[in-house]
């Protein structure tokens, strides 16, 4: 069974600085998807960025980028130029390409942004 681990329960960053959130996963599959979701205090889960395992190029979305290391089974999220609105719980998630659509989530990392 696949598992996702986020080893940082809490992280803090100064506004305008850069922060990296860590995620590792375990799977025996070679083809899958990885996601980072953001969950603000209002509880609505929002997709931040996604990565397809067969793509070597790291995904980027404006200030958000990932460092995908397939061999190490690592998928970290880098937030550049942090803004107050980035404060939220961030979840790393795995989805198999071949075994249905369910997302397997990590435990989450709560990010606070200091003005």
């Amino acid at each position, binding site marked *: 069974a696949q598992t*996702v681990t986020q080893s940082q329960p809490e992280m803090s960053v100064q506004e305008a600085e850069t922060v990296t959130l860590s995620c590792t996963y375990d799977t025996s599959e070679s083809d899958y998807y990885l996601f980072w979701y953001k969950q603000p205090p209002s509880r*609505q*889960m929002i997709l931040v960025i996604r990565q397809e395992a067969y793509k070597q190029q790291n995904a980027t979305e404006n200030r958000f980028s990932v460092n995908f290391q397939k061999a190490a089974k690592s998928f970290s999220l880098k937030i550049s130029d942090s803004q107050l609105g980035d404060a939220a719980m961030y979840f790393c998630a795995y989805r198999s390409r071949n075994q*249905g659509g369910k997302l397997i*989530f*990590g*435990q989450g990392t709560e990010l606070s942004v200091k003005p």
Partner: protein
Amino acid sequence: EAGVAQSPRYKIIEKRQSVAFWCNPISGHATLYWYQQILGQGPKLLIQFQNNGVVDDSQLPKDRFSAERLKGVDSTLKIQPAKLEDSAVYLCASSLVGARQETQYFGPGTRLLVL
């Protein structure tokens, strides 16, 4: 485009009572998911529908939880009887079948407190 709608937003019940949650997915999304998110944890899939058929209910406690999606659109999730450990946020998500990566879009969730 309207997002995933859920109601009620909050519910407080006593143990052994029954409760029902409602979800309306994004128009045209054939796949619907119910996740349970216990405080401090990542969401866990309870059940996945494609149209009105069940794709995955392996983690649904079937002795007390039930879900239906009769016309392939709206869905209801029921708990009867509720236990203290059912206190959680229940998230509904939907996705478009066939879309690349089948990104899941989440509703605001229903926060359940069982006393």
